[in-house]
């Protein structure tokens, strides 16, 4: 495959899906390399999850709001460059709901407008290149009571605070795994919540092995580490306790979370008997990592790694002709990696010369940030093995713990269904138990379902990447733009 071989006249048209750090970076690089660029983002504003903010001119962010943002200057520069470039068309509130793979290239089907609106405007693109920068969403492991109001993902709490300046509760506990818990706790404290503690499931040993191993390899990643150091300082200022090897293993309450049970964990994240304690809260924010949004990548036929990320080469090319990917769809490595990857993807998708000096710099930066990603996975990754059957965190679940919240399928129901049908195949068990068949289409629960079944998770295909009204679907397709 070569990006230069497509025999269409005029300059290349690059469509970038997602206007977070990776997407904005890709759009600017593609435009500067001479392409015509269309940037599509489902939300009202650019910036993605990382630079989430209220819609409107971002120059008017208050000091209060600015304190919640990191690298805001970088964002402002990128955003201005993208908006002011004459070859860039930016479309917000643009949901790519389907991607087709035709013999002559990809075709994207887009609806522009409010998600529930009847009057969304359809757009279709058949570009020379697509850059997928669709990001990732929180992954939360199930536990008894996680469906109670007041239990949110850390990402949702972060978004609410950044976009609306609102804290999810006044006595809040943050739990899960990964460095993302730190900025969430800091943000919650900044918008006025009392953060009772941050409980990191990984134990000191895993954290040390992940983060302290061969520290010279972290050269070049100072931005990320300084950012984390900043959060640590914030924690000291707000007096937020940070505990490792602990998890919220149950939430309690009538109609709303009122308390949580915290337990110490063994290395497989199994609760250690006798260490449980109950803490009163009015909200709890839980995240155990991130799941990349792969719908469009899968639809476009790109190879996916065993860790479930889009497989890309050194220039961010996927295995599919015409398709590049950047940012957290290709690995969870933080904002610096996303910016570097976005630049590489946009530049290469536009047909920019690969041996340019900036390309070499970006490749170097990417390599360094990927060292951070590797360490993050080593330090905070969800265990996949445990003593006996499956990882230890499965022992948080009781038979009546809801696993699929859309269809209210419990862990017991899943185990019973697998037992009576002698099947652990997710395709069969989903259809006989209904786990994963609801409105979120398994985005929340499918990893937990396959872990409970002890099955290797099949790659899920969601051809309808976002819900679409039947009336809009009836008007879809037709010749491309």
């Amino acid at each position: 495959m070569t990006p230069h071989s497509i025999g269409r006249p005029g300059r290349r048209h690059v469509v970038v899906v997602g206007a977070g750090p990776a997407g904005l970076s890709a759009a600017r690089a593609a435009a500067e390399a001479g392409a015509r660029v269309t940037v599509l983002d489902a939300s009202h504003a650019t910036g993605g999850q990382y630079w989430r903010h209220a819609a409107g001119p971002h120059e008017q962010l208050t000091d209060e709001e600015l304190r919640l943002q990191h690298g805001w200057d970088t964002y402002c520069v990128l955003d201005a460059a993208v908006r002011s470039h004459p070859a860039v068309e930016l479309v917000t509130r643009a949901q790519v709901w389907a991607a087709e793979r035709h013999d002559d290239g990809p075709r994207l089907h887009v609806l522009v407008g409010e998600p529930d609106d009847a009057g969304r405007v359809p757009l279709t693109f058949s570009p020379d290149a697509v850059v997928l920068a669709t990001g990732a969403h929180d992954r939360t492991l199930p536990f008894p009571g996680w469906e109670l109001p007041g239990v949110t993902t850390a990402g949702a709490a972060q978004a609410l605070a950044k976009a609306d300046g609102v804290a999810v509760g006044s006595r809040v506990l943050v739990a899960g795994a990964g460095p993302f818990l730190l900025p969430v706790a800091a943000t919650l404290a900044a918008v006025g919540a009392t953060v009772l503690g941050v409980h990191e499931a990984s134990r000191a040993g895993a954290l040390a092995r992940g983060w302290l191993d061969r520290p010279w390899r972290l050269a070049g990643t100072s931005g990320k580490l300084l950012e984390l150091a900043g959060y640590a300082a914030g924690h000291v200022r707000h007096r937020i306790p940070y505990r490792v090897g602990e998890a919220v293993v149950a939430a309690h309450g009538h109609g709303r979370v009122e308390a949580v049970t915290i337990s110490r964990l063994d290395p497989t994240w199994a609760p250690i008997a006798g260490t449980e304690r109950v803490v009163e809260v009015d909200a709890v924010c839980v995240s155990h990592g991130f799941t990349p949004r792969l719908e469009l990548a899968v639809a476009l036929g790109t190879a996916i790694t065993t860790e479930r990320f889009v497989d890309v080469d050194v220039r961010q090319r996927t295995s599919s002709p015409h398709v590049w990917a950047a940012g957290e769809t290709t690995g969870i490595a933080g904002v610096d990696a996303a910016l570097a990857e976005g630049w590489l993807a946009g530049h290469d998708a536009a047909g920019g010369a690969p041996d340019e000096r900036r390309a070499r710099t970006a490749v170097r930066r990417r390599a360094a940030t990927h060292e951070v990603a590797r360490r993050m996975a080593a330090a905070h990754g969800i265990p996949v093995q445990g003593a006996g059957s499956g990882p230890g965190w499965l022992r948080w679940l009781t038979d009546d713990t809801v696993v699929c919240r859309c269809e209210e399928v419990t862990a017991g129901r899943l185990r019973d269904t697998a037992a009576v049908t002698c099947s652990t195949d997710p395709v069969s068990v989903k259809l006989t138990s209904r786990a994963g068949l609801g409105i979120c289409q398994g985005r929340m629960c499918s990893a937990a379902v396959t872990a409970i079944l002890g099955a290797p998770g099949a790659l899920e295909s969601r051809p309808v990447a976002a819900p679409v009204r039947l009336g809009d679907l009836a008007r879809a397709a037709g010749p491309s733009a």
Partner: protein
Amino acid sequence: MSDVVVIGAGIIGAACARALAVSGARVTLLDRGSPATATSAHGEGNILVSDKGPGPELDLARYAASLWPGLSEELADELGPAFPALEYERKGGLVAATTLTGAEPLLAFARTQRAAGLDARPVGADAALVLEPDLSPDVTAAVHYPEDAQVQPVAAAEALLASARRRGVDVRGGTEVVGAVTSGGRIRGVRTTTGTVEADTVVVAAGPWSGAVGQRLGAPLSVLPRRGMVLVTTRMPHRIRHKVYDGDYFGATQSADAALQTSAVVESTAAGTVLIGSSREQVGFDVRLRVDVLAAIARRALRLFPTLTDASIMRSYLGFRPYVPDHLPVIGADDRLAGLWFATGHEGAGIGLAPATGEIVAALVGGRVPALDAHPFRPGRPGLLGASGEDHREP
């Protein structure tokens, strides 16, 4: 009765294995993947008599429809309340024409079915709206078929498998057949990726892959994949009471045209979603999405139910149905190789026809006279032997 190998643990293979075990055979059921996850898991669970014109397929459909009520009760009793519900429901079908030119062919088709003894009741537009309040008032003719029914196809297939296991059937997933063991001009077993399985009788029930399996056993058969796509809405108030489909449905079934064909089949499920099918394409085992196909299905559904325009589609799926040129299932012995049998070619009707297919195979293999003349379904009929389906897997 001797040892039998059944190849393919979809609903057809499961029904055959169970019926053979009931009649005393020692059965090994092989599947190269997981049971009940390919064609059986990507359809709609139709048990239809309404879409079949007089002839052998209607006879087979009516025989199958007569077996389902007893079978679903028997399976539920045998497997107990912990087993997923089969959701068998004889809800009836309503076939509606939405154009003036479509009305008369629909009514004429129903007349031929009535002459063959089927309960096919023409209803005026007003009566149709009583049966289906959200139906378009533009409907020009409609026929009500009280015998049409629905079942949850994967639950049904798994129930047949579970029942088969209780009768001693050895169900082996992850076992792909690579060739036949033959001697003295007859089959003696199959070679698989996990070893040889000996048997005097081998039944190929591999759906759209049956032609390719036949080829590996030395008996190619003209079975091709025909792709169908289905849309699923989010949960909505239960407003659609029957299987409602437009009058072009049987026209599409009976055409060999490879070009895209769509017709609307709209129904509510027990879970509260609405299923909207479906399309027919001959594109091999291509799994690539085609939005124009989904759009065509949506347009047809809206002609029947304009109020569905605001329904939210959260999912689409596609499956490959086993298609044969003359649209008749293939059930019977293959004269080219003694001991080799086929049970395939049901296209979009395999879920409904499975129990009848199993009974017929068990009777024929056991040397008994089946409840229905199976001669029209024999593999040796004109146009089937020789050409093979494509030997592809879905990626």
